């Protein structure tokens, strides 16, 4: 019960959308394909589904799926914008896959509608639903025939933020409850980390890193991955005895080995404190649960920092910034293309 992709490439003319990708998704695992737009993650997903002609191998339990058309793969598919059948009602959409397998089952339809929180919506016409409801129906539709693998292509990105967070939690719950094996394509790390057991980071058609969310979050393999994962500044540092030191100060990283490294700093890596690097607030934006600061430090450099809503310093104020472990990622040593 394992999806194994090896040496998979997809070419559009001379352009390689996906190059030589190896991946595996074991039974019951949710793997997120995370990457910026245009990195080839959707194409990879479509190739797995059998929708893109590709070279290389896509195997299920060591059986090569080349020659197995989409409809025989038993992979469920959820698109960004639902793609519900406009000529069928909600129940008709959910029942579709069961009908294709010749096992219409009204109870299963009701069960799935219940699972996605849409009990009693069966007779509704799909165009009467909101975007979030449509995505829930799409999810129920894909899950109803108990697919071997669920493929989700940016399932939440067409929704507004509040809805997205709610649905991400619901989706995570549904995936866990149903024990689904799933491949989720997303460009949003929050979404990836909410949903996935493991994350595969893609860039320019290649998978650059695969690992558990916390691992990928803490140890991006290279500068581009770090920047994609939110690190605005990358600075050289030395780790000694679980403490990393750089020009912006020291931070305790008990999980880090001794030696030369680079630190990737997310905005949350620097917070106002009683002690630390001195600087002047030049810009300040209020976010939902924190205040985002831009601070000019020695050497005329601008760094990002965050402060609590209650005690955020004003523009022009002098502050001292201290490093916070939560916002720090660890990169192997090397020369960064740019530090700030």
């Amino acid at each position: 019960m394992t999806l194994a992709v090896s040496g998979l490439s997809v070419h559009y003319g001379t352009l390689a959308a996906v190059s030589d990708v190896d991946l595996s998704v074991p039974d019951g695992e949710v793997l997120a394909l995370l990457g910026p737009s245009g990195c080839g993650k959707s194409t990879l997903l479509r190739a797995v589904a059998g929708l893109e002609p590709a070279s290389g191998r896509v195997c299920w339990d060591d059986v090569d799926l080349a020659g197995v058309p989409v409809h025989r793969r038993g992979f469920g598919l959820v698109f960004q914008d639902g793609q519900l059948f406009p000529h069928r009602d909600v129940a008709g959409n959910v029942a579709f896959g069961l009908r294709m397998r010749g096992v219409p089952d009204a109870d299963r339809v009701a069960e799935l509608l219940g699972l996605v929180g849409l009990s009693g919506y069966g007779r509704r016409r799909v165009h009467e639903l909101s975007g979030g409801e449509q995505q829930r129906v799409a999810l129920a539709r894909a899950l109803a025939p108990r697919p071997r693998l669920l493929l989700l292509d940016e399932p939440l990105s067409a929704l507004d933020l509040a809805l997205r967070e709610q649905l991400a939690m619901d989706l995570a719950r549904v995936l866990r409850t149903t024990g689904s094996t799933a491949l989720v394509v997303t460009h949003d790390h929050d979404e990836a980390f909410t949903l996935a057991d493991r994350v595969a980071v893609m860039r320019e058609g290649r998978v650059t890193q695969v690992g558990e969310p916390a691992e990928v979050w803490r140890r991006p393999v290279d500068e581009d991955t770090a920047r994609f994962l939110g690190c605005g500044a990358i600075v050289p540092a030395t780790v000694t005895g679980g403490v990393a030191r750089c020009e912006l100060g020291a931070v305790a990283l008990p999980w880090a080995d001794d030696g030369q490294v680079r630190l990737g700093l997310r905005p949350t890596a620097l917070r106002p404190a009683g002690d630390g690097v001195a600087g002047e607030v030049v810009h300040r934006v209020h976010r939902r649960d924190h205040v985002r600061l831009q601070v000019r430090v020695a050497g005329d450099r601008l760094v990002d920092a965050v402060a609590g809503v209650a005690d955020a310093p004003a523009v022009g104020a002098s502050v001292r910034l201290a490093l916070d472990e939560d916002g720090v990622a660890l990169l192997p040593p090397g020369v960064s293309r740019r530090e700030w």
Partner: protein
Amino acid sequence: MARTRTGLSPGLLLVALVPLGFLAVFFVWPVVAIVRLGFGEGGVLAVLGSADTWQLVAFTVGQAAASTVLAVLAGVPVAYLLARTSLPGLGLVRVVILVPFVLPTVVVGLAFRTLLPDGGVLAIVLANSFFNVAVVARTVAGLWSHVDGRAADAARSLGASPLRAFTSVTLPALAPALTSAAAVVFLFCATSFGVVLILGGSRYRTLETEIYLRTVELLDLSGAAALSLVQLAAVVAALSVGVLARRRRESALRLRGRASVARRPRGGQSWAVVGAALGVVVLLLVPVVVLVARSFDGGFAGYRALAGFGHEGSLQVSGWEAAANSLRAATDATALAVFLGTLASVVLVSLSRGRVRRGVVETMDTVLMLPLGVSAVTVGFGYLVTLDLLPGDLRTSPALVPLAQALVVTPLVIRMLLPVLRSIDTRLRQAAASLGASPWRVWREVDVPVAGRSLLTATAFGYVVALGEFGATSFLARPDTATLPVAVARLLSRPGELNNQMAYAACTLLVLVTVAAVALVESVGRSRVVEF
């Protein structure tokens, strides 16, 4: 992987062979043969070089373009009425606007001569548009009823006037259907024969009437061949314009359910458009009402005579038998055309969904349309010099009637189906496939239901065109298989009051048969096809 790099499967190629094979045997081969025969006689260049020829071209294209513009202007409000409003009686409007299509050209010609005694060009243009308003209205309505109106709402909110929102948002969304309809109407008008002959005489001649005269009356095959080539070139040019226009607007639309877009008209502008549409419908019905009224000139004498065989046996069939013949012949032709047209549309849309070069698809599309733009006489005379090589010698066989009619109806079916099929998001089909639907099943479960309404419209249209078809039928039908239009023409070509009354009674019968047949097709279909 399963599919080849082009997205072309052997099955699809096989499917493509059916309509293309039909086209090759019953169109390309005969036309090429007769044109070659003309070339053999020499003198083609002389005709091509004559100023007279180019005058013919100018007039043909000019009147067809003018008629098309008029038909589009009149048809779009009617499309709005059918697609975006919910008013009582729309079902009837949907059906009756098809009536002009079946009226025998001689009857329409005579009617327009009465209305515009000195009409000339104006009468020709009006008559041609009269026949074709329904093509525009129904084709455009087919798409319009599924276009999401929120884009236009957005434009309004950005400060666009209703007109501006229509021209800058709605119209581009409708472009695929509009260009499709316009292409068909242009071809119909460019090759319109009966009314041009009646209203234009030898004063206003088109390529079509000239090819007819040269071929049929003068047997001047070289002159006819030259003109046929010119006609073909003009048609290909017109179709290419259509293709280029479509190219700019080939996008998957966001289709919406019908119920969500049809509402009672609100506001002055909306009612103004509805008023215009109803005006067009009334104008379309004027000639129909006039001829129905004429059929009662002698009380019910004409109708009583329909049960018999006409004045002193003008007909070998009774009016009722002729009606039955009409229905039978139209059923054959429509079934064949819907079959061929659906296959061709499936192939065309599959090709453009696959990674086939756009030019290939467009060329095939254009070729499939050609039968609408080439003179029926050229094709008919082509049959004479080719079809005896096929088993069964179909040259003068009545079995050729549905085949010849299907040749004209098939492009119509394609033009009505393609815009909707093309507007179906590929991912909708992929979703179905991922749920276990085989490619064949995807067609049945997604494309057919979504395009169902258009398929119905196409079927109804095919039926109407076949019911009204005159040229091929009058040549090929046996006296005892005469259809209503043939009977009408025959009755009108004879002196005597009763024959005349009977002709108009037969015409009225034709109208009734048409309305009944179309209503039946639509209601049967509607109970099967889920409205969305």
